[in-house]
């Protein structure tokens, strides 16, 4: 009798897992279709990183060299620019949940016979995939800024980009889960996205900072993402070199991502 009950419970669990996977896959697929349909936006989103890399990279690079720093600033900022692209694309994908709510589509998903968890998971994977594609585009610039990539580093970078994007999209889903209107979007940009970006060490080295700033930098999950990418893109040494070992970087981002996706799932389960 007990065995039969266990069996039944097992079946139910199995079914829930399958339904979650099917739901998440469907939502992921929609994100990709929308991204592909909006190619012009992808190209537009490519302009900003290009400006940062070549204009800021070259301009500040000249200044750094005159200050006697070792290595090249443009190679240093390369990882930061990738991270910026991942950050903006991920947050934008996540916040599209608010659009879906406003235009009614979220209702169609909320009443479907799929667990709520699949919405958060599908969105997180969807946003992560789209952001990774966007980030991969930037790798095209590598030869122009003197970064040499190979058959091992490219897949590693793509994997790390995916982990970072997944974590940030999950953070975005947590924020968007309770947002009822798009008016809050500017607030998110000012209070979450910009601080994450500026404190991440994307634009400046983080090794010799005053304690107050150093503390904030270490709290920023994106710091570890940027550092991981910098470990992989290489080309910099001395003051511009990565600060942490790559296992610690990847571990920190993965942990943050796991916390965020868990919160996102929890929030969606509680929603009425």
């Amino acid at each position: 009798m007990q065995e039969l009950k266990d069996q039944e419970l097992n079946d139910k669990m199995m079914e829930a897992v399958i339904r979650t996977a099917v739901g998440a896959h469907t939502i992921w697929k929609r994100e990709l279709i929308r991204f592909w349909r909006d190619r012009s936006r992808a190209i537009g989103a490519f302009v900003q990183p290009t400006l940062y890399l070549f204009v800021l990279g070259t301009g500040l690079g000249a200044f750094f060299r005159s200050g006697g720093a070792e290595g090249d600033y443009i190679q240093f900022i390369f990882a930061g620019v990738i991270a910026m692209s991942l950050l903006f694309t991920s947050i934008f994908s996540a916040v599209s949940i608010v659009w879906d709510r406003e235009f009614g589509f979220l209702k169609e998903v909320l009443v479907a016979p799929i667990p709520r968890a699949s919405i958060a998971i599908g969105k997180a994977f969807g946003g992560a995939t789209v952001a990774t594609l966007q980030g991969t585009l930037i790798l095209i610039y590598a030869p122009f800024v003197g970064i040499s990539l190979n058959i091992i580093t490219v897949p590693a970078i793509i994997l790390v980009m995916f982990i970072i994007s997944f974590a940030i999209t999950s953070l975005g889903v947590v924020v968007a889960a309770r947002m009822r209107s798009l008016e809050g979007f500017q607030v998110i940009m000012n209070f979450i996205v910009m601080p994450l970006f500026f404190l991440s060490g994307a634009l400046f080295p983080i090794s010799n900072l005053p304690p107050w700033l150093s503390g904030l930098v270490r709290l920023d999950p994106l710091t570890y993402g940027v550092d991981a990418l910098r470990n992989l893109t290489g080309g910099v040494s001395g003051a511009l070199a990565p600060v942490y070992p790559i296992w610690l970087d990847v571990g920190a981002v993965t942990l943050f991502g796991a916390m965020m996706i868990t919160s996102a799932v929890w929030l969606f389960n509680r929603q009425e």
Partner: protein
Amino acid sequence: MQMNIITVTDLVRRFGDLTAVDGVSFQVKEGEIFGFLGPNGAGKTTTINMLCTILRPTDGHATVGGHDVVRSPMSVRRNIGIIFQDPSLDDKLTARENLDFHARIYGVPSSERAGRIQDVLEMVELDGRMNDLVRVFSGGMKRRLEIARGLIHHPRVLFLDEPTLGLDPQTRRHIWEYLLDLRKEKGVTLFLTTHYMEEAENCDRIAIIDNGKIIAVDTPVGLKDGVGGDVITLHSENSEELAAQINSRYEVEATATNGSVSFSTEDGEEFIPRLFRDLSTEIGSVNLRRPTLEDVFVQMTGRAIREEEADNTDRMRQHARAWRSRR
């Protein structure tokens, strides 16, 4: 004997101190077209949302297709299709992509998806627009696409919340042709809410709901027979006074609304000349007709369905908002 596909027992839903649905009970038979008629804010959408497992009831029970809406929401969801009051399509996807999305999350096997998409699109005559973005569709086309989408997983009950709200009369008739065909061919049970009288006439049975309570459930003919005889409507500047006069003089129940007085009587044609002989109050115009569902509503609640619309909607919205922000 027909089976009850929906049973509702003492269903209650409160939002803070507002009781939106106040103990309603009814049954819907399999294959029936069942309508909820009432002004906005009467509790129609709240009831439908509880039956669709979007909202949890505060109290009471409801089963759809034999499944309890609170205990087995997933089983309920698999057996129902929902057409919401507001559009819920992704207009950056094509018609086919919207349907494919739906078919997948409702667990339609991959081997059947393409065939079913074709079927439902043919039914609403949108098969030629399959690969167009929904963004370019008109309001009526979007509604038809939503009906098609609601059917793709072969639900036993289709819920429609104000299915023709905001559509022009021609499109509205068109949508109804589809719905009536659907019932005839597939035997799907339709549960709909409306505040259009003409729409309610299409239902097999109607529940009249007001202030969260059901005040009558019957066939349209049965409800209208309840009014009794012909309806006479008089327009007058002094409608209140006129109503009082009529009530004191004859054995009828006249009600004054918005400058007009209406009441029903058995032999309307003979009653009007008598009325004009007897009364001194000035009467602007007179109208005699068979009773409509509007008359049923007026007789049961003492007011017209449309005049309170704005008030009630506003009140509901305010309450809902206040309730949300408190959480």
